């Protein structure tokens, strides 16, 4: 199973869902009630938005007793980073490495 990029971008395309992620970034592991007290939309809407974030694997949940805690899961965002930024960084590192080798070879020739 590959990461479903459509689901991630769809999840990120909504202001309220981005706000939920921001709230979890500031204070990870919140209950639905805690999140609702910090949002100015109905509890039912918060539940709906959290479900979409969970389906996109941007929010992970765990139960502690009877309480469900919500966590920001940054792993899929890391995969986006790798796809559009990390790959290019690798090329740049390779270019620098090639340059270093070329320069070292020249030094060897001069010696």
């Amino acid at each position, binding site marked *: *199973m590959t990461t479903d990029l459509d689901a991630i971008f769809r999840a990120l395309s909504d202001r309220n869902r981005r706000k939920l992620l921001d709230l979890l970034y500031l204070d*990870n592991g919140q209950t639905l009630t805690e999140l609702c007290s910090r949002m100015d939309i109905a509890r039912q809407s918060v539940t709906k938005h959290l479900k979409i974030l969970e389906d996109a694997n941007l929010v992970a949940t765990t139960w502690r007793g009877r309480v469900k805690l919500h*966590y920001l899961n*940054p*792993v899929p965002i*890391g995969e986006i980073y790798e796809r559009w930024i*990390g790959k290019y960084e690798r090329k740049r590192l390779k270019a620098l490495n090639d340059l270093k080798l070329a320069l070292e070879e020249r030094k060897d020739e001069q010696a």
Partner: protein
Amino acid sequence: MSKPDFMYVIYISTTPQKLWDALIDPEMTKLFWGRHRNVSDWQEGSKWEHQDYDNTETVDIVGQVLESKPPERLVITWADPKEADDESKRSKVTFEIDEFFDAIRLTVTHEDLEPGSDMEQGITQGWPAILSSLKSLLETDEPLAMTTRRWDG
């Protein structure tokens, strides 16, 4: 009941056994875990060490195996060797491996971290990269470049 500080979930196309093995195989961790190896007999109560792959005398993390149920659940304590005797500096990491539809889900939770500590900062930067690289290695045989080198000096 303590509440996890961080929780990471990643879906990987592999088998539970391959994923379990990857967490403890030095030739795999070398590639996705910043050129380190995890050394233990992985029995409950045993010690474990997170060592530099090339210089095994350099130990960066130490702890104890609290639970070990291959290939489903591994719970370890986690501390800087210099602070390992101080209980308040000891944190706990749980790896859970389960099947989720056609993929394997790896859930990593980290709890009892000291807020604002260097350890907490390192953790939040470290886990997402390590897990993405582990996925990449298991699915494509290629780790991510950022995790094949040591991070610290």
